[in-house]
């Protein structure tokens, strides 16, 4: 696996070349970093004096790095509501954790976004190209946002007050329980086990469900 620094170099390189139309990246002060040596060894980049060039073999890795960085930014901005000022800093750290399956799950969670909060494009991943069947991927959403016949397991409850929480507990809407939404209008009707319950929109938006197919 690439080091964090190596990922950042690939990322910067790709942005310079693909988005800013330059041929290579000026190394400046970071000339003797071990990360560059590693990347050269792997055959991802080519170094001549003060500049590095992206090679064909490194391209897909570079795209992956950019994608993860921008997904992390979206996640910070849309879901965690992180302030703009510290977004870059947090995202820079977070992106390195978004490997393997996690990357595509986050992408699905965010609804396969196409641009980052800075309006730069997010390179599409495999999941975006296959998203014809969106529901294949697990997404967490409140019961109020689901469509009729959607199924899932309750992930957590988030009521505005304890009395709302108590009501949900009393009807047995607890994390881990499987639910199916049966009706949305005029009230929300859902099935838990062998029982059906009707609740209003306010309580429905307090139940968060991890969708399953």
């Amino acid at each position: 696996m690439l080091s964090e620094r190596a990922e950042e170099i690939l990322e910067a390189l790709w942005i310079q070349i693909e988005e800013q139309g330059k041929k290579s990246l000026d190394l400046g002060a970071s000339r003797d970093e071990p990360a560059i040596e590693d990347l050269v060894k792997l055959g991802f980049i080519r170094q001549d004096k003060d500049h590095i060039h992206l090679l064909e073999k490194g391209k897909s890795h570079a795209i992956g790095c950019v994608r993860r960085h921008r997904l992390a930014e979206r996640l910070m901005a849309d879901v965690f509501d992180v302030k703009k000022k510290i977004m870059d800093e947090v995202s820079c750290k977070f992106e390195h954790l978004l490997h393997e399956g996690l990357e595509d799950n986050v992408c699905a969670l965010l609804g396969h976004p196409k641009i980052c909060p800075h309006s730069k494009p997010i390179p599409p991943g495999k999941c975006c190209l296959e998203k014809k069947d969106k529901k294949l991927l697990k997404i967490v959403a409140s019961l109020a946002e689901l469509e009729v016949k959607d199924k899932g397991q309750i992930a957590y409850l988030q009521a505005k007050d304890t009395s709302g929480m108590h009501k949900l507990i009393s009807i047995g809407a607890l994390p881990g329980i499987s639910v199916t939404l049966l009706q949305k209008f005029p009230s929300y009707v859902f099935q838990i086990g062998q029982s059906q319950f009707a609740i209003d929109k306010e309580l429905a938006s307090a139940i968060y469900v991890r969708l399953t197919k």
Partner: protein
Amino acid sequence: MLKDFAKKIGYDDPLEIYLTKLESFLLSDYEISKHSVALLLLQEDKEILDLVKDKERQSLNEILKIIQEAKAHYSQPLTYIISLCRQREASRIANMVMSFRPAHRLSLRERFSKIMMNPFTGGPILLIILYYGLYKFVGGFGAGVLVDFLENKVFANHINPFMINLVERVIPFKLLQDLLVGEYGIITLGVRYAVAIILPIVGTFFFAFAIVEDTGYLPRLAMLVDRLFKKIGLSGRAVIPLVLGFGCDTMATMVTRTLPTKRERIIATLLLALAIPCSAQMGVILALLGDNPRGLIIWLAVIILVFLVVGFLAAKIMPGELPTFYMEIPPLRLPQFSNILRKTWTRLEWYFLEVFPLFIFASVFVWLGQITGIFSLLVRILKYPVHWIGLPDKAAVAFLFGFFRRDYGAAGLYDLKKANLLSGNQLVVACITLTLFLPCIAQLLMNVKERGLRMGIAMSVFILFSSFGTGFIVNIILTLFNVRI
């Protein structure tokens, strides 16, 4: 054995530690296991907390400290944490012994349930139930056939003549004779009224209501109307007392106890008192306007409008917690006849114990009012508002009696109609005003009992003004647009 079983539920580790600590401080005898007491303490059960405060004076501080620590350990309420553990255990057990075959096709029952809960098909179903249950069965059979038999055959031909004869022979005083068998006497008015008119109407209503209740239709109706009811400050749950109000508003007012917040209880009580006509009253109004479909439609439209407007304003004005709606939708079932009979019987029993004495009371009131001359004074005062809404002076008597029995007031109008003293317009205005007018004395007393003296009186004053106000406005509109009904 039960104690052993209780301990087998594995709660979270920290929770178990707090429980064990708590148990070691519980020294007194509680009749239930110490484990259960400790669990209830952690769930902040008020009753148990008071009991423990009383029994464990020495170690109370330690106990309270452990509860605080346990609460601080979790970011969510402990009730939630404990429920989660129980739920986990329950599913574990259930999964060991139960399995469900996935249903491939919706059963007939499920499909019917869906039709009832669909907003487009649910409306017509409600209308069918209202038409056959309320209009045909309660209105036609109860208020028509049964009342006719009991009132005109049993009471008019047998009981009344017999009692009048008996009383006049045994009691020589004219005044006491009047109290018992006079025009408004306890037996001739109070008992006759309760047994021959109200009993068959309310009885058939309770019977029909029990059938509807046992099929599981009501929660489905509640779910349909919740959105609309939120606008008038109520949740769908309130549909049950409001529908019951079509049978007997007094009983329905008592049933508002099932509503979760004070705000909902007050709004529901007000709407019951103002705009929900009880079965006895509806019976007479149908008799008054039955041959006048346009009048009936105007009456219905005005009552529905008042219901919505007053509810909407009450919801705006009233402070307090906004209603939330949650309700189990039980599977649809074919009602069991024995259950229906038992329910009807229990309600009738209640009705006789609680409401019957009020009829007697009302008769005594009328008797007192008549011999003291208070009634003729009140009738004179009532003549003014009655005049303002375009009705003849004689209608004042109907309104006064309407207070003792709302439906009796309507019956008073019936006499006026028969004597051809009212035009179509006047009849509609009178029916509207009387439907909205002060609830019968039984309901007034129930309002005071359930909502307190101040709220009960405030509601009555409001209803007095809004009923005559509505009658006044309707009369003006009808005259302005030159409508002849």
